[in-house]
């Protein structure tokens, strides 16, 4: 059971710290867990992982994926980190063949997705990582809303063989869940119910989406808010139920509207249900440089922009 935190204004731990602490706890219990880094150990905090279980391959992401596959073939469970564009599009054929096609177990942390790339700019921005990873048969993709959920994802991926990808900011984000919340891979979390519109969000934008719902409530508009943290496999049952009961759905993601959460919902609804759908995300644009706050507004993913777009279908 997941429960909303009582203070959503509060920031949690840095997400990179959560990943590192969780991995260190896992390594303590099971030394077959190994972490791989491509020379971003200082940026990810991976340099704080137990030395015997950390492999820094240097700036060579394709090799990192292959090495991880080889490690898995000898019985290890690898967790790989680099920035999300390099973790996905830079090494895609390796993820596809040395990973998916070879049926090896790879857990990949793509950090700083979308606008969170901030001042690293357009070269370091991925608005397409989820789209790419979705194309690998049997992959699992998660976009973490906060630290509590992130910890669950890191742990859950150990038990799920295959190519598993999670994206999350390295820095602290606002809290969404209480510490004792429980999740299930592939199951969306209904955070709030309302009959006028359903807002389906993922990742860091879940928090903003709750703000939008609260703002709408002050105007007498009641919104359902769903945290679809598992983008693949998507929770079809919940989408169908939402379409039937509410009929108006808005998807919200820090990603291109092509190939990510919005696409997944649209594809499913086109064949299985009827609802008015609006996708909020990035449309035919590359990333650029700026602070995350600037970029969030620039790409129309801040609270006010989301609110305005939601109003368009009401």
């Amino acid at each position, binding site marked *: 059971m997941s429960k909303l935190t009582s203070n959503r204004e509060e920031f949690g731990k840095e997400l990179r710290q959560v990943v590192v602490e969780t991995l260190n706890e896992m390594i303590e219990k099971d030394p077959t867990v190994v972490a791989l880094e491509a020379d971003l150990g200082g940026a990810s905090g991976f340099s704080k992982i137990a030395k015997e279980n950390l*492999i820094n391959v*240097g700036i*060579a992401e*394709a090799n990192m994926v*292959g*090495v991880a596959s*080889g*490690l898995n*073939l000898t019985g290890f469970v690898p967790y790989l980190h680099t920035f999300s564009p390099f973790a996905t599009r830079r090494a895609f054929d390796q993820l596809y063949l040395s990973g998916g096609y070879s049926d090896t177990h790879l857990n990949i942390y793509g950090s700083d997705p979308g606008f969170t790339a901030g001042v690293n700019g357009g070269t370091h921005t991925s608005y397409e990582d989820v789209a790419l990873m979705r194309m690998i048969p049997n992959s699992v993709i998660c976009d973490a809303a906060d630290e509590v959920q992130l910890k669950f994802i890191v742990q859950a991926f150990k038990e799920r063989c295959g190519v598993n990808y999670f994206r999350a900011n390295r820095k602290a984000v606002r809290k969404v869940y209480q510490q004792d919340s429980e999740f299930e891979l592939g199951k969306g979390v209904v955070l709030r119910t309302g009959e006028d519109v359903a807002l389906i969000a993922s990742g860091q934008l879940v928090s903003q989406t709750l703000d939008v719902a609260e703002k709408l409530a002050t105007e007498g508009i009641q919104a359902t808010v769903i945290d679809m943290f598992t983008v693949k496999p998507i929770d079809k049952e919940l989408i169908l139920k939402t379409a039937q009961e509410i009929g108006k759905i808005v998807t919200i993601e820090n990603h291109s509207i092509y190939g990510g959460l919005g696409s997944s919902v649209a594809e499913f609804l086109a064949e299985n249900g009827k609802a008015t759908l609006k996708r909020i995300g990035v449309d035919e644009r590359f990333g650029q440089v700026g602070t995350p706050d600037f970029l969030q507004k620039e790409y129309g993913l801040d609270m006010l922009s989301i609110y305005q777009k939601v109003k368009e279908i009401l």
Partner: protein
Amino acid sequence: MEKLRDTIRLDVLKTLKTMGYGHLGGALSIVELLAALYGSEMKFDAKNPSWEERDRLVLSKGHAGIALYATLANAGFFPKDWLDTVNVGGTNLPSHPDRLKTAGVDVTTGSLGQGTSIAAGIAYGLKMKKSSAFTYLICGDGELNEGQCWEAFQFIAHNQLDNCLVIIDENKKQLDGRTKDILNPFDIQEKMRAFGFTTQKVDGSDLSSIQKAIHELKQVKNSAIALVLDTTKGQGIPYFEELSDNHSVKFDNEENRLALEKAIEELEVRINEQTNE
């Protein structure tokens, strides 16, 4: 070992005859190497292909799959009549090796360069587990065009993976022609040395030279090791060695077909003689 070498070569040719086409050049250039590995060097149990302590083989030049299949069949991993099914829909023997389909295939390969990193990861993992199992990585010289090979070689050298023998089949040709005309590899042995490897280069058509080099390189400690094999594409069959376009050969013309049949006949005679000796 000579008999195994000739039998592998014969089975490669018979497989090609059944298929009517195939990657002849680069399959024949590693026949001696595979005979040396499976005939004497490698630790494996064909009845227990996933035996933990087995040595691993990564055929990173996956297009030479039929040579590996002929070898594995002779080593008893699966029945020889499977060789008639290469590339037939639903087969266990696809053109490029697939670890999920074939007993004895440790790593799925085909997208060039990727096997190098996987072999590196296997060798690293075996070290972590303090296993005595050894990893043999076979690359093509054309394959070295791929940048990923050099990423993996740096990793192997940096980590001093002396339990991973990198073997480069220098047959001097790739699909579109001679390697020196497509993308000059220059001196491969020198390059490997510069990357931090302890290296040897021997005649890749000579079984005893290959064996001796492998023995010596396996004695090296705390350094990556590489063996460059001086080979010929189409090795062992003069007609196909001389055929200019011999990466993948079709047997839809009289000349190629007759040459193939003649080579099969000669090998059969030779193997019979070896059996009677």
